[in-house]
C-alpha cells in the first residue's frame, strides 16, 4: 500500500504542476486572442470589460475543462496497462 501511496503522491504532484502551468498558459493565450479580436472589431465596449467578459465565458467553457484531461488520461492509461498486463 505504501508503494501505491508513493506513486499516487508523486504523480499527483507532477500532474498538478502541469495542470496549473497549462491553465495559466491557456488563459494567457485566450486573453491575447481576445485583445486581438477587440482591436479588429467595432470596439463597442472598452478593452478591459471586453476581455473580462470573454474570459468569464472561457472559464465556463468545455475547452477549459478539457485541461482536466491532464489527470484523466494518465489514470486511464494506468488502468489500461494493469488490465493488459494482468488480465489479458
Amino acid at each position: 500500500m505504501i508503494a501505491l501511496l508513493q506513486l499516487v503522491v508523486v504523480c499527483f504532484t507532477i500532474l498538478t504542476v502541469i495542470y496549473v502551468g497549462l491553465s495559466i498558459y491557456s488563459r494567457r493565450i485566450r486573453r491575447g486572442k481576445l485583445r486581438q479580436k477587440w482591436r479588429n472589431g467595432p470596439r463597442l465596449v472598452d478593452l478591459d470589460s471586453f476581455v473580462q467578459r470573454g474570459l468569464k465565458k472561457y472559464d465556463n467553457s468545455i475547452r477549459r475543462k478539457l485541461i482536466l484531461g491532464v489527470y484523466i488520461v494518465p489514470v486511464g492509461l494506468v488502468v489500461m496497462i494493469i488490465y493488459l498486463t494482468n488480465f489479458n
Partner: protein
Amino acid sequence: MGIIKWVFWITVWTVVAAFFHYTLPQTDIVRITETYEKRIDFGENSIFWSNADVGNNTTLGNRDVFFIQSRRAKGDVMVYRNEDTGWGWPPYFKFDTTNLQAEAADLKSTSDTPQYVSLKHYGWRNEFLSIFPNAISIRPVAGPDVSKGIPFLNIIILTLFVAFIYAIWVRWRRFKARRIDPTLERIEDDLAEKQGRFSSWMSGLKNKR
C-alpha cells in the same frame, strides 16, 4: 574543450539508450524447459531486481524469486526472473507473477515435443552481475520461426521521446541565438576594445622612456 563536449554528449546518449533498452518490452521466441524458485540475497545488483509481491513485506534482505529457464529459438539458453513490478518502476503494473509462473509451468516442453512460446520481457541478462530479464507475459505460438510482431508500443514511446527532445532543442537554439550569443559578442567586443586601449597605453609608456 571540443573533446570534453563530445565525451559528455556521447555518455549522456549512451545512458539514455541503455535506459530505454533496459526498460522497454522485448519479445523472445523460446521453449520453456523448467520453472523454479530460488532464494536470492540481494547485494550490489539489487537495483536490477524488483520488489516482493505486492502486499508482502518489502524490508527483508532476501526472498524467493520465481525463475523461468528456457532455450531460445536461436539456440542459446536464457533464464528469466518472474517478479511483480507492482506500483513501482518500470510501470508495467505487473501483479500476476504467480499466475504467470503457473502458465509457464503449464507450457514446459522437451526438445522431442517442443512447444514454443512468445515471451515478452524487459531487462538484461548479465552473468557478471547475476541479473535476469523480468518476464511480463507468455503466449503459446506455432513454432520457432513465427514472427515477433511489430513493436508498436516501443515505436510510439520512442517517437514521443524524440519529438519531446527535438522540441526542447529547437527552443534552446532559438533562445541561444536571441539572448546568449548577442550578449557574448558584446562582452567579447568590450574585451577587445579594452585590450586595445591597454596596449596603446603600454606603448605610450615605452615611448616616454
